[in-house]
């Protein structure tokens, strides 16, 4: 009898612990920033500030889309996930996406966040993405490296840019003066577009007609190839390698988002002391009268309709997922912490107008570097990865000397045309 009682009480105790744990509500949050060692403690701190228990799942940036789709299709737990703004057209195809206008109300959102910023998370009239941080992909310069090469002024034309790179190479023969993206389809196609715009070209013209087989494309491809041939850029460079080289003073320029400063702090080993050397500049253009362009960039949070997003079966801003998203995106304190620690530009109007942001030289410089930001021309297309692969492969073919720029431009147009059909 005594043994029976003991067994019974143990079972009750175990069940109560298990029950308590099972009932402990938490949001399952999949993201890539916590997979980056320098960002992990910062973002975990932000998550803690939301006051919502979260099961944080990390994925590398490159595997993010795949992991989201696999979790959704295999019906594994997932409440909220991070997305690049350019992936929104792809993620918008997922079932059970939450329109944030239905959760918080459109008016409320527009009172907090400017319509221009909200637009980065809107797809076909639905607010599927809640902007988390915003900015652009701009050219970032390392003034420490430039000063060592005797360069005082930022190059404004492509010719000046090449001369600057040569000066850096002469001063530091072991360096890679420009960490051009030569690895990874997404990155190569992004750098290609930025230089194509700088050469006055576009993949699609203003009438959305394919216009990639152009002189501008040929010039861009030759420009990129020459940089590698002259050892001013290297093969096998992705964003991670570029950030490392930049922080270690081996690179004078590369394209990145505002978070570049956080990585430079980390990789330089000098922390905030290194901030002074991280200066965003306008992308050089073919001739001075041309407009410089950057690429629109931003991170979004996307919410799925799950038990954690509802209260009594209906979407609610009081739900756990909604509180979590609001905590990260609408709380000025959290937004400013993210900005201060890693340079992520806030999305709420009040945080953007905070003196911490407006008087920050880095942000002032960043805003000046924007020129006219353009949206990535490929990411908005249906099955965008096919187009990205085509542009990247043809660009790499030229850089590796497998095709001439003329052949690659013609093939690019032919292959994109085929995909469009």
């Amino acid at each position, binding site marked *: 009898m005594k043994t029976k009682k003991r067994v019974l009480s143990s079972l009750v105790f175990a069940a109560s612990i298990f029950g308590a744990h099972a009932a402990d509500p938490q949001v399952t949050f999949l993201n890539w920033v916590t997979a980056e060692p320098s960002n992990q403690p910062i973002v975990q701190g932000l998550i803690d500030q939301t006051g919502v228990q979260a099961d944080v799942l990390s994925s590398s940036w490159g595997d993010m889309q795949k992991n989201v789709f696999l979790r959704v299709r295999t019906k594994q737990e997932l409440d909220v996930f991070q997305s690049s703004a350019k992936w929104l057209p792809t993620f918008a195809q997922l079932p059970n996406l939450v329109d944030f206008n239905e959760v918080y109300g459109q008016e409320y959102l527009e009172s907090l966040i400017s319509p221009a910023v909200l637009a980065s998370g809107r797809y076909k009239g639905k607010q599927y993405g809640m902007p988390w941080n915003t900015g652009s992909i701009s050219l970032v310069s390392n003034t420490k490296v430039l000063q060592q090469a005797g360069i005082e002024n930022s190059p404004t034309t492509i010719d000046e840019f090449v001369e600057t790179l040569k000066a850096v190479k002469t001063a530091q023969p072991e360096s890679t003066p420009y960490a051009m993206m*030569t*690895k990874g389809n997404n990155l190569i196609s992004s750098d290609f577009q930025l230089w194509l715009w700088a050469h006055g070209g576009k993949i699609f013209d203003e009438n959305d007609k394919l216009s990639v087989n152009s002189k501008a494309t040929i010039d861009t491809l030759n420009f990129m190839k020459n940089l590698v041939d002259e050892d001013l850029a*290297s*093969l096998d460079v992705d964003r991670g390698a570029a950030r490392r080289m930049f922080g270690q003073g081996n690179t004078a320029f590369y394209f990145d988002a505002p978070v570049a400063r956080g990585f430079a702090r980390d990789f330089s080993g000098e922390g905030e002391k290194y901030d002074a050397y991280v200066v965003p500049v306008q992308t050089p253009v073919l001739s001075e009268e041309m407009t410089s362009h950057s690429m629109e960039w931003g991170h979004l949070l996307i919410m799925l309709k799950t038990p954690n997003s509802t209260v009594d079966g209906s979407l609610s801003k009081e739900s756990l997922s909604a509180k979590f998203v609001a905590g990260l995106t609408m709380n000025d304190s959290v937004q400013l912490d993210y900005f201060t620690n890693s340079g992520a530009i806030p999305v709420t109007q009040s945080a953007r107008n905070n003196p911490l942001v407006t008087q920050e030289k880095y942000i002032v410089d960043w805003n000046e570097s924007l020129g006219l930001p353009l949206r990535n021309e490929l990411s908005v297309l249906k099955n965008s990865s096919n187009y990205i*692969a085509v542009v990247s492969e043809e660009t790499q073919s030229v850089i*590796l000397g497998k095709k001439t720029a003329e052949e690659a431009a013609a093939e690019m147009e032919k292959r994109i045309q085929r995909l469009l059909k």
Partner: protein
Amino acid sequence: MDIASRKTVGKQQPTNAKGSLKRSDRRFAYAILVPAMTAFLIMVAYPFFDAMSMSFFQYTIYDLEPIFIGFDNFVAVLTDPYVLGSWLTTAIFVVGTTLLTMTLGLAWALLMYQDFKGRGVMRTLTLLPWILPSTVSAFVWAWMLNGKYGIVNVMLLGAGFIDSPIQFLSEDIGAMLAVILTRTWISIPLFMSFFLAGLQGMDYQQIEAARIDGAGNLRIVKRLILPHLKPVFLVTGALGMIGNLQQFDIIYALTGGGPVRATSVLSIEVFRQAFENWDLGMASAIGVLWVFTLMPIVIFYLRSLFKED
């Protein structure tokens, strides 16, 4: 012949295939097959037939439900020169890796067959690349071959063989060589084990007799060892080709199929279609064609196994 005599005959001829097992034994044999068959049906047969049926459908993330399109996926695959190029890339990888692994595996087995001090330790250490997770090996090789920080470049530069670092993983031939070498490095222990087992089945006196008759090392290998190992060659060759045709993780971790599809073998192409382009129909079509590519080698392997039996 009456029933009784038939029964007697059955009992007197235990070698007869049907009569060799009692009914109860046959039942037991079927019973012990059940777990394996169940696992096979769930893990292999169902996914295979599911993929086969999927290959006749258009099923991307933009399609809520699969749409039947007949052979369109196969037509698309067989008319796309870039996807077709994957077959050639696969052939280069499979032939290159299998030949290199067999050659080096045999050479290493011959070395390990010799009697020398520390042979046991050496044989154990040889298994190390095989024990390591293949992705770990791939990342180790990726760092060793890195164009900027890799130790291979440091050594070549230090020895004065090259003036500037070689971007192994960013050039067509370099990338293909890198994946072949990495895969070979990982596979050598397994192949060596096969060859060593074959060598240990040899009558060593034959080799000694040949030496007394004046045969040199090369002649012994050519006239004695290679003919003796012929069945092992057939089995390891077939197994190696099958394994290399299925290879994915090392290539994906090292090059991701690049640069410009230089190492884009069939497994990478299927992955790309399924998880980058989200086109499950097209991925299934390539997968089905991939199985048909594997089939002749599998049939050859199974036939040679049954022949031996």
